[in-house]
């Protein structure tokens, strides 16, 4: 990415200007060309992107403001994705460590609370990843070739279509929720269709 989509990488890391030995930040907010309030890891970005702690990394200011994505949206999504991914990996390591050292399952309640959270978290990480790559490419729909604004359809009523589609998916979500709740209440052994058959129509 440092080679092919340098502006996207700069948005991930909130790198305002082209820097030799560029740092990484955990957390923080991008303001006026720099990250404030994050934990700085010196030279880390250069090391990861170029395998050289002193390599220059292209910053956002290398392209005109109109060619830059909204940095904080991209950064926040990227950090959320990395944080969740790291957490999930650590949980796997913790589980394996307990299993290998003690030959049993972890006993900590926190491990299981995290395990319950891991399902939704993985979905959030997935969405954050999409946000990172799609918003990070803006304002281009084809990087460096075609603007999103020129790629969009000229058809009218797209707003209506969007609202209808949201309605359809909201109805589907409600139906799935209803279905899962029913399946959770009835034990899987009792076939719902059996009941339908016994009930007079």
């Amino acid at each position, binding site marked *: 990415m440092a080679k092919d989509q340098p502006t996207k990488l700069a948005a991930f890391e909130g790198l305002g200007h082209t820097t030799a030995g560029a740092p990484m930040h955990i957390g923080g907010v991008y303001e006026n060309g720099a990250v404030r309030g994050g934990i700085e890891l010196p030279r880390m970005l250069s090391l990861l992107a170029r395998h050289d702690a002193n390599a220059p990394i292209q910053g956002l200011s290398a392209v005109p403001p109109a060619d830059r994505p909204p940095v904080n949206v991209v950064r926040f999504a990227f950090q959320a994705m990395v944080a969740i991914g790291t957490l999930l990996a650590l949980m796997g390591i913790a589980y394996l460590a307990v299993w290998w050292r003690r030959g049993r399952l972890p006993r900590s309640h926190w491990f299981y609370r995290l395990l319950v959270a891991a399902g939704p978290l993985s979905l959030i990480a997935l969405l954050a990843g999409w946000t990172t790559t799609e918003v990070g490419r803006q304002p281009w729909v084809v990087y460096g070739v075609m603007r999103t604004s020129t790629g969009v*359809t*000229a*058809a009218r009523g797209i707003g209506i279509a969007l609202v*209808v589609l949201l309605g359809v998916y909201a109805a589907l979500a409600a139906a799935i929720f209803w279905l899962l709740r029913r399946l959770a209440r009835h034990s899987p052994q009792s076939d719902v269709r059996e009941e339908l058959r016994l009930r007079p129509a």
Partner: protein
Amino acid sequence: MSLADACLAGIALGMTAYVVLGGADFGGGFWDLTAGGAERGRALRDLVRHSMGPVWEANHVWLIFVLVLAWTAFPVAFGSAMSTLYVAGFLAVAGIVLRGAAFALRGQASSLPEARLFGAAFALSSVLVPFCLGAAAGGIASGRVPVGNAAGDPWASWLNPTSLLIGVLAVLLSAYLAAVFLAADAERAGLLELRRAFRARALATGCVAGAIAIGGLLVLRADARALFDGLTSGRGLICVVLSALAGLATLVLVWRDRFAAARYVGAVAVAAITAGWALAQYPQLLPGELTVAQAAAPDATLVALLVSAVLGALTIAPAQLALYRMAVTGRLAGPVETS
């Protein structure tokens, strides 16, 4: 044959597969919709659900195949068609989503009103989708898609005589194919009453579809003269005659209870029509606007596309074939459950 022609042939092949296999799938919904009240239509609906269960989403592979070929090989034509025909396209997509969800949820319904709600959503979208896709095809065939970003009329492009004709034909053809498939399934399951019911339905829809197809030529003559001329001369005419003969042959086979053979001959009738459409307007891709050669992507793209399409087909075809094989020989689902 140029690279672009090869891509066009691939699109026609995928469309044929989608119309035959996906059509039978949608047609099941048509018979569900017209089966009558909950009590009266029960046995019929049970057979539809039983037969469709194993294959009902697999057929969208063909639609995806056609779309990918179309947008990669003919990007400008695809963009023009999609942005002009977006209302029909949107309705078709919404119908496909609703249909799949309703079919899955209906199996979990525990009361009659629930089953009715999901059943109605499933059956209505089964009719909506082939109509909208057929109407969109009619818009392209009758030259109502100009080149450009949403340059055509968003309504008249798919609500016009040719579109209505092809949309209605798509629904009837689906119903016909489904009735033939279901009659064969009923026969294998030993449900003789259902076999009779679907045999009658197949003969009726087959005759109606054939009559509308022949009468429809007059509609095309008035509304889409270039398409009509293409279909009534040269290679287009050969395809139309072949399709009519194959259509007649399927009716005879259904009449004689040869449902398995009727399936294959019915597929030939549909294939002849899609090929006939392509040949009738060849070398036009968007009639009056773009030829196949003008609309084609650069050769490097077409080569990459054809290579990956062949590799994809080699990967998927054995699995799809095995699935259909098991579905038509009844090895996938157990005995028909009655609800």
